[in-house]
Structure formats: C-alpha cells, structure tokens
C-alpha cells in the first residue's frame, strides 16, 4: 500500500480506478478492432502505464494543458478527450477529436487542454515551453504537463526544453514515463545514469520520482509537483517508473526483453493494485468496483458504435486546415 502525503478521498480513488480501467479496456478493445481491420494505421498502446496518465491528469483542471507522444491514448482519455472522439479518431472518422486528420499518434483536443499529440520523440519537450511561457506572461495560473518517455530524454529537445523552462521558471511539469525501453532499446544501453530524474540537476530543476505502477503514489507526487509549478516556483521533473505490458507498436514480438521481466512487472499491474487498495482502505466495495466496470464497458461500446456509425471525412476536407 502506498505511503501518501495526504489522505485520499473515496472520490479520488474511485476516479483513478475508473480512469485506469477506461484506458485499459479502451486499449484492449482497440487492439482487437485493429486486428479485425476496423481500425487502420498503427498503434502504440499503453497497457500497464495507466497509473501515470490517470494519476497526473487527476490533478489538472480542464484549463491546464498537456502535451503527449506517439503513445497518447491514455493521456487523451485521462485529460478528458471523450472515448467517442478518441475512438472515432482511430477509426479515421470526421467525428474524431482531430476530425480524422490526426490519427492514433496525434490524439488531442484543445477543448480539454491537450495539444494534438506529438509523435516526434521529444517533440513536445520544446513546444510545451511555449504553453508555460504564455501562462506565465498572462499570469493565468494554468499549468502545462509534458509527458515523455525515458527514451526521449536522449533527444536534444529534452535538454533545450528543460533548460529553457528552468531559466524562465515556467509553470511546467515534465512527466517522464520511464517504461525501461524506447522501442527495442533498454535505457541502460543508452544512458549511463539509471534514472531520468538524475538529469534534472543539470538544469537546476527539482526532480521527484513515483512508483508508476501505483496510481495513488503518482497522484500524490503529481499533486505536489503541479502545485509547485502553479505557484510560480518553476518547472519540475517527475519520473514514474512503469512498464508497457504490450509491444512497442502493433506487431512487436518483444524478443528484446525476457519473459521473467515481463512477469515481474505484470505482477505490479496498477489496476488490481488500486482495487486492493480501495477495498483495504475502505474507500469502496467490490460492488462499487463492479459498477465501475459496467459503466466503462457501456461507455466503450457506445464509443465503438458511435465510431462505426460516424461519417468519414469528405475528400474535400483534405485541403482544409492547412492554413488558417
């Protein structure tokens, strides 16, 4: 069980659970739909990493913003992109959150404070500084969160973005989802320091870490980080150690990592974990959890139906939106 700085309410705990479940089930169904040929393109999914998206975004207001990566489904749902508009986007439908133009790697919606996800590794790490800069210049009290992988911390963009945010003391939380691998490459092959958080001191930036398989721990650490950023005390780097239960993208046989390692991490699955925590902490019952499950399934089926029935974009849409 997590050691938390503050008490967690029933609402928060059940909210985190529902969010993680929604992401997990979304990803599972999407994968099947992809294999069945209903969803085109490719997929980078986040089963196993749900606690990070859920734990961080639960601390954000709708007016706060996030940037995301090639693996954005969980971030999108957690920040408030509806299952309908996320799913429809994967279907390439005009009702999708990017009207079919973005696709899986670019999920996002300004209406809920999420840029189209940036599929260039590290790409969000510089763009997010502009979000933070505008919040600071306009004194809006908003916060920006930049999700990125440990692999992205080797990009020049990580360096320039973090240093710029530090120097300008911008209200940004850089959230590293360290899932140990960038595609087939384990972090220890591409970094001599074991933690991305070890890099923050190079910029005079505070870093914290959280167990990325524990939604309550992430929630807690993110709350502290976001509060700090919002209060004007500059950016912070929050590293969450996590694991993707699936391949890097569809069709990755994961031959580069051991079954033993996978089993070890599967045992840390954040969803059963929070279920146990909720019951143990007396924040909810098995019945509450069953109810959550049903409501997620309903939402998911509705989203699939909606997506199937939604119209495709018009061919003429292709040349819209190039320029404003």
């Amino acid at each position, binding site marked *: 069980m997590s050691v938390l700085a503050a008490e967690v309410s029933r609402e928060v705990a059940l909210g985190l659970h529902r969010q993680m479940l929604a992401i997990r089930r979304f990803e599972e169904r999407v994968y099947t739909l992809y294999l069945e040929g209903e969803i085109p393109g490719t997929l980078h999914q986040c089963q196993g990493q749900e606690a990070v998206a859920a734990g961080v975004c639960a601390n954000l207001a709708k007016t706060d*913003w996030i940037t995301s990566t090639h693996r954005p489904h969980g971030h999108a749902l957690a920040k408030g992109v509806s299952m309908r508009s996320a799913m429809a986007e994967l279907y390439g439908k005009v009702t*999708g*959150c*990017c*009207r*079919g*133009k*973005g696709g899986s790697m*670019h999920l*996002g*919606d*300004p*209406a809920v404070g999420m*840029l*189209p996800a*940036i599929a*260039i590794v590290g*790409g969000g*790490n*510089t*763009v*997010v*500084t*502009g*979000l*933070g*800069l*505008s*919040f600071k*210049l*306009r004194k809006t009290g908003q916060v920006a969160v930049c999700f990125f992988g440990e692999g992205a911390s080797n990009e*020049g*963009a990580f360096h*320039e*973005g973090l*240093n*710029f945010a530090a*120097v*300008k003391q911008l209200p940004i939380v850089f959230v590293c989802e360290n899932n140990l691998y960038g595609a087939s490459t384990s972090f220890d092959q591409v970094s001599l320091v074991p933690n991305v958080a070890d890099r923050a001191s190079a910029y005079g930036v505070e870093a914290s870490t959280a167990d990325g398989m524990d939604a309550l721990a992430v929630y807690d650490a993110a709350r502290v980080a976001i509060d700090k950023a919002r209060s004007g005390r500059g950016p912070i780097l929050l590293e969450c150690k996590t694991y993707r239960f699936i391949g890097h993208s569809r069709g990755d046989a994961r031959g580069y990592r051991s079954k033993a390692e996978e089993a070890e991490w599967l045992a840390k699955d954040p969803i059963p974990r929070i279920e146990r925590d909720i019951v143990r902490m007396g924040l909810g019952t098995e019945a509450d959890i069953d109810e959550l499950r049903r409501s997620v399934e309903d939402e998911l089926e509705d989203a699939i139906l909606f997506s199937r029935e939604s119209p495709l974009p018009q061919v003429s849409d292709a040349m*819209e*939106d*190039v*320029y*404003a």
Partner: protein
Amino acid sequence: MPSVAPTERKISIAEALREGIAEEMRRDPSVFLIGEDIGVPGGFGGAFGVYLGLPEEFGRERIIDTPISEKAIAGAALGAALMGMRPIADMQYSDFLFECMDEMVNQAAKMRYMSGGKLKAPMVMRAPVGATQRGAQHGQCPESYFCHVPGIKVVCVSDAYHAKGLIKSAVRDDNPVLVFEHKMLYGSKGRQMAGGMDLTCHVPAEEYTFPIGKAVVKRQGADLTIVATHICLYRALAAAEALAADGIDCEIIDPLTLVPLDTETIWTSVRKTGRLMIVHEDTLTGGWGAEIAALAAEHCIYSLKGPIKRVAAMDAPVPCSPILEEAVIPSQARIAAAIRDQMNQ
C-alpha cells in the same frame, strides 16, 4: 506603393521593421519577441540591431532573451502561438534555422492540420539571409526549403516600405510566417555595404499594412519579365537600367511573398513579355525559382517566346574569400549577361 512626395520620410529596413514591430506591440499585448541577444542591456538589439530601443519601451518581459537553443526558441514561439499569443521569434542568421527544423516543419506547420483545424499557430520567425563574407555557415539563403513546407508562409522583404507593411501583416496572420530579410539591405551600415545603393525609402509614419501574397511591379517593361528578391532585385533593376540603352526593356517584379505566390501579377507580365527570368541568391537546384518556372511552364507555356531562365547562386556552399563569394552569387554583370542571352534565344 511608397509615395514620392517631397515631404517623404525615408528610413531603412531595420528602422521600418522596428517601427512595425513596435506598433504591433503597442496595439496587441499578445505580441512578444523571443530570441538570442535581443534585449540584453548594453547588447546588440538582435544580430542586426532591429530591436534597439524596444526593451526600453516594452520591458524585458516582452522581449525575451533565451539560451542558445534554437529548438527551444521555435518550440516556445509555437507553443505560445497555440495558446493565442503572437510571438515574433528571431534567428540571428537564417543558417541556424536548420537547428529547429523539427519545430518548424514537423510541428509549427502541421499543428493546425493535425488538430483538424481546431488550433492555429500565429507565429512569426524572422531570419536574415545572404552572403556577407562570413563563409558557408553564415551566408545561406534558405527560403526555398520553407517554400516546400505546406502550412508555412514565406515572405522576403526588399525595401523599408514593404518591410513595415509586411511585418505587421505577418504578426496579424494566423499562420506561421517566415520573414526573410537580407543582411545587406538592413541599411544600418549605410550605403557602403550595399555597393552605393540608397537603402532607405519613404515609409509613412502612420499605420498601414501590406498584404501577404501580393507582388509588386518595380519596373514596367515589354520584353522580359524578371522575378527577383532581396539584393538580386536591385541588381536586376540596375542591369535593366543599363540594358535599356540597348533597347532591352525589362519588367521587374518583386514577389515579396513566395508562399502564397501572387501568380496573377507574374502571369500577367509573362503573357505580356513572353519571356521569364527568375533571379535569387538562394542556390539554383531546387530553389524557389524552379517552382515559378515550373508553374509558368504549366500555365503560360503558350505565351513563352523562349526558354525560362534562372539566375541563382551556384550550387555550392558559400565560400568565404570575397572573390569566390562574388563568383557564386548573382552579380549585376551575370544578370545582365543572362538577360542579353535570353533576348537572343
């Protein structure tokens, strides 16, 4: 077009840009500047002095000095633009744009489209071009690369009047606009650097804008249409004056905006003269002159009396030694020879 009244107020491009930027900053609090060495007290006011005096009026909160981090500059400008601000970002030399191509090409140009039209990215990026005896990494004219990026607008300013009008339009435009300025034309160094040219022109003190996407005819002529920008425009004008004595009558167009291109003005001229030449300091192969030539070869082919010619920097990096630099970039003599040649074909 600039009036030539006796009461005219002549200023340089550097001054015109400064004035245009200052007016926009006064008008709209969402406009800010961001770049290296732009606002440091006792500093340079930007690599070519364009921002001198602005920090005093607007404060360093709106004139944001950055680390030497072009990716962060472009990324910050883009991010702020997406949030509704109107940044003017600064590259000290356009050669450094290659350090932030991801932010420009993969992010800024595509963010609106990827969002399904829900976002816009009203950012300006200013970038000085041109060879000035500084060698291969400080003398490029990379505007053609950006002409190939859907989602970006490309402006080349050649005189103070249009510089002011266009920088103001660029700030108000809802898209990423790259404004390329030629180092030899800023006018801060006076006539000498530009080979005796007067680099000032009449610029109204009052508010005006000049539309992005509109070309101007700088010289009327019957025999040959020349499209030229920046310093090549002036060399073409001088060559045309010299050749007028020989009865060659050139029409010279300053496109001012390369994307979107004012094809109407150019085609009208080409249909009249039947001949087309494009002159630029960017290198030849794959330069923007190729695009104009290709468009003309599609849309005006039946009006053409002969080959379309391009005069451009030779396909080489910019060499440092002045004699070599002069050899690679289009000189007045090379332009004049090409005109003669073309009139004989």
